[in-house]
């Protein structure tokens, strides 16, 4: 597993913890955490994953 994927997984874990806490008990604070931390973290993790996929495809000379 590459460093980029590891970082992506850590981001997903943090974001998921905050999203679940918002689902379990929706308060102003948990909702703020979800929208200001979870969503950007998910987005960043997705970008890292896509970058890694493109790198992998280039490595195998598909792209």
């Amino acid at each position: 597993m590459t460093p980029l994927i590891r970082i992506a997984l850590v981001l997903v874990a943090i974001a998921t913890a905050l999203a679940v806490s918002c689902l379990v008990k929706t308060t102003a604070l948990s909702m703020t955490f979800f929208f200001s931390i979870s969503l950007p973290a998910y987005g960043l993790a997705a970008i890292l994953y896509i970058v890694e996929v493109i790198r992998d495809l280039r490595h195998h000379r598909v792209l």
Partner: protein
Amino acid sequence: MTSRLKIVLLFVILIVPAVLSAITAKVSFSRAERVEFCGSCHTMTPWINDVTGADGDSLAHEHFARRLIQHDQCYTCHSNYGFLGPLEAKIKGVRHVIAFYIGDHGKVELYGKFPNANCLQCHAEGKAFLEDSNHEPVADLLSGKDLCVDCHDTMHNVEQEEDAAADGKTNGGHEEDKGGEHGKADDDAEDGE
């Protein structure tokens, strides 16, 4: 990486987060309209107590106690009536949270005048509203030239309770007579029915 791991990562990093985000956003936006959500900030406790308490003489309490608004009472009055009203309410809510956590603990008040449209979304076509001579000329209320809150000014009774508590201390604990305010609140409630 094996092909199996790639598929697992696709689900863990892309698909599950997308589904979880959509569910959380939908559920939290829906829950954010409830009175309990507004009360999740301790700053709002006096207002929530005023609205949901057993005794109250404010317009908000009357609307809640008589169930003139069935659900989401805070949200119904405080999100502006119109296409972007709910979005503006959520942006203002975020401003509230930011203001609180950067240490601005000043007086809690509305950002602007309470718009007539928020009252008139229910009352505009009501018989009690249209037939009350105090509302004439109705066109001025409908256009926003006259404000509902200019007369119906006891929307919440939080400041008055604080004043009463302060007076109670200075007057040896005697509760201030608020009969005049009760009378006004009753008039307000009757207008709403």
